[in-house]
């Protein structure tokens, strides 16, 4: 369980996150949804302390995230983001095996873990393990990114628009694959996106953010049925409106 309590981040004059509180249940997938600049990425990065909050508290399984040193904290949390950030001087296998290497796993254990993870993200190990990340497609690169984040079996994943730069087909299959993975391993996930459809399809619950605050936090169904205000109502109606337009086009 992840708990944020009155978390605030102020950059010089701007308030990026404003007294934000929320709870993520164990095994839950919570989507942080909002337009760019609403504070969703900042919120996410404060959880693994890539950003330190100005005030407030963050608890992971009831322990404050500042109680352990930052390196130990980060090693227990998987982190995937749009930029992927594969190490271009290392092979695919070495990229995936880097966290186990930091944790001093034996070569043999690391090797079998890398193969296991490559299978998990549907990249045949024999074909991909020794390849250079730069030679992979965007979708394949992010599969490696996900595998790398899963390497030492974190029970929390932080995902920052991980599939935002991928083409729709690839995005769709990676979304489905991730849903399988997190169910299989019961991974608590916070998933940042600005894409309404993605939020509705993936989230157990969605927190709609604007100007550093959570406007409403609810299941997709509840958000669609009972939007708390006009802004959310308008936001929720966009996927449906698009679907209607598409249907109309198809029937012409």
């Amino acid at each position: 369980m992840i708990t944020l309590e009155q978390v605030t981040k102020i950059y010089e004059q701007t308030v990026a996150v404003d007294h934000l509180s929320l709870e993520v249940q164990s095994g839950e997938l919570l989507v942080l949804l909002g337009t760019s600049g609403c504070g969703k990425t900042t919120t996410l990065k404060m959880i693994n302390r890539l950003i330190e909050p100005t005030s407030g508290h963050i608890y992971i399984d009831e322990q404050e995230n500042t109680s352990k040193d930052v390196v130990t904290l980060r090693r227990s949390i998987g982190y995937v983001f749009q930029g992927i950030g594969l190490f271009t001087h290392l092979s695919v296998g070495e990229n995936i095996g880097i966290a186990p290497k930091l944790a001093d796993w034996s070569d043999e254990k690391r090797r079998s873990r890398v193969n296991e993870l490559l299978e998990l993200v549907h990249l045949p190990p024999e074909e991909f393990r020794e390849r250079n990340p730069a030679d992979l497609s965007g979708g394949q690169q992010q599969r490696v990114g996900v595998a790398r984040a899963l390497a030492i079996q974190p029970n929390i994943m932080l995902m920052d628009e991980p599939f935002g730069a991928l083409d729709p087909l690839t995005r769709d299959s990676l979304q489905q694959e991730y849903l399988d993975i997190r169910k299989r391993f019961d991974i608590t996930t916070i998933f940042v996106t600005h894409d309404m459809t993605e939020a509705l399809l993936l989230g157990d619950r969605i927190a709609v953010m604007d100007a550093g605050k959570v406007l409403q936090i609810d299941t997709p169904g509840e958000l669609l049925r009972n939007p708390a205000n006009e802004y959310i109502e308008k936001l929720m109606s966009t996927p449906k409106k698009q679907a209607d337009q598409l249907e109309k086009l198809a029937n012409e």
Partner: protein
Amino acid sequence: MSAFSEQLHYLPDYLGGHLRLTLIALSVGVIISVPLGIIATRFKKLESSILGVASVIQTIPGLALLAIMVPLLNMIGIIPALIALTLYSLLPILRNTVVGIREIDADIIQAGQGIGMTDSQLLRMVQLPLALPVIVAGLRTSAVWVVGIATLSTPVGAVSLGNYIFSGLQTRNNMAILFGCVAAAVLALVLDGLIHALEIGIQERKRGRSFLSIGGFAVIIIVAIFLGTGGNKSLGKQTIRIGGKPFTEQYILTNFLSDYLRKELEYSTKIVPNLGSTVAFDALESNQIDVYVDYSGTLWNMHLKDRKMPTNPDTLLQNLKNYLKQKYQVPIVAKLGFENAYCLAMRGEQAKKLNINSITDLSRHASQLVMGADVEFFGRPEWTRLKREYNLQFKNTRAMDAVLMYEAVKNGNVDVISAYTTDGRINAYNLKILDDPRHVFPPYDAVVLVSPEDSKNPQLMTSLEKLTGKISANLMRKMNMEVDIQRKSPQSVGQALLDSLEFKPNN
């Protein structure tokens, strides 16, 4: 011996010295620059000052940076050369380290932090490996620079391929100049190629190529360690280091002194050629060389320029002798018998036509004539005094390298030059030395100086004293001509001088 094989003979010594200077300077350069570069990327405030200092060093001309090390460190030889070359190697490596680290994709850094790397793991496992190709590219630039600038370490007393070039320029030995230039260029190309192979090996993650390059370096390092270091076998007795300045006469005299001391005292000897004027005296005074030949007027200007210079050469020499002995414990042990003074010279036939015998005569015609001299001369007090005392107004003046002056006057490009009285080309080109009735040019008696430590060696002192009066100006001019015009080697001329001299038997 052919001209080529004569030069080839020096190659192990010069190339070995050059390689050692280059490799050590580059290694130390890397050891300093890379950590400094890392610090610069960590502390933004320091970055501009670190890069600023390195850039300023880079703007100092190579020769000046090398020369300034001698008085700063009060020593000559490999150490000042290494320090200057190392300083010179810093900027490209430093700048590329900073750029290489800074230009790494921010996403990659964030991924490393997100995985839970510590700062040092991030540096070791991500930042340095990714910046390495850029750092190596900087090393490549440094290597080419350092190989080139290392040729300038000759005048501070470190052996390098520059010995070919400096000696070759002075004795107009084109083969030597060519040899030095080609060897330095080949060395630069080889190092550049090897580092380039390493760069590509790293960039494309080709182990084979990297190993090939590392193997190449291993060979070069082994060569650097062994090449030309076997020559200084001690004969059990003390080795006498004979200093010399970079011109023909000095090449002959150092070789002569070397042969003389070997024969006379069975000492082993080592010639340290091509030292700058002040460098040579500083080296002697701090016991880094044992013996060298200098000129009374030069020494006076260096040490006593504030006092009025006596016009009588013997008075001057006596004052100088007392002063150097008292101040530096440096004895002047022998006056060789010739003077190598500055003089004004012109084509013999022109002097005859215009009826010019002295500088006084010259002043009447100067407004029609062009004066040529080496760059140094126009900055010397003699030039100012000359113009004042004789009221000289030339049509034009041209500064040029000392080597080229004689050709220039011979060919009529200039009419009057600042010559040296013992230069072989004065006779060979039929030049007329003009009298100096007002004694503007000070006396330049050639004298042998001994270091403070060696002044306590009576055998050495006695042997050197015996050289008093042994070399006349005519003899010296003839020997200079043999090297400059007849292309004999300074060694053979020095040897011939020794063979021709007769000494009274030892008591």
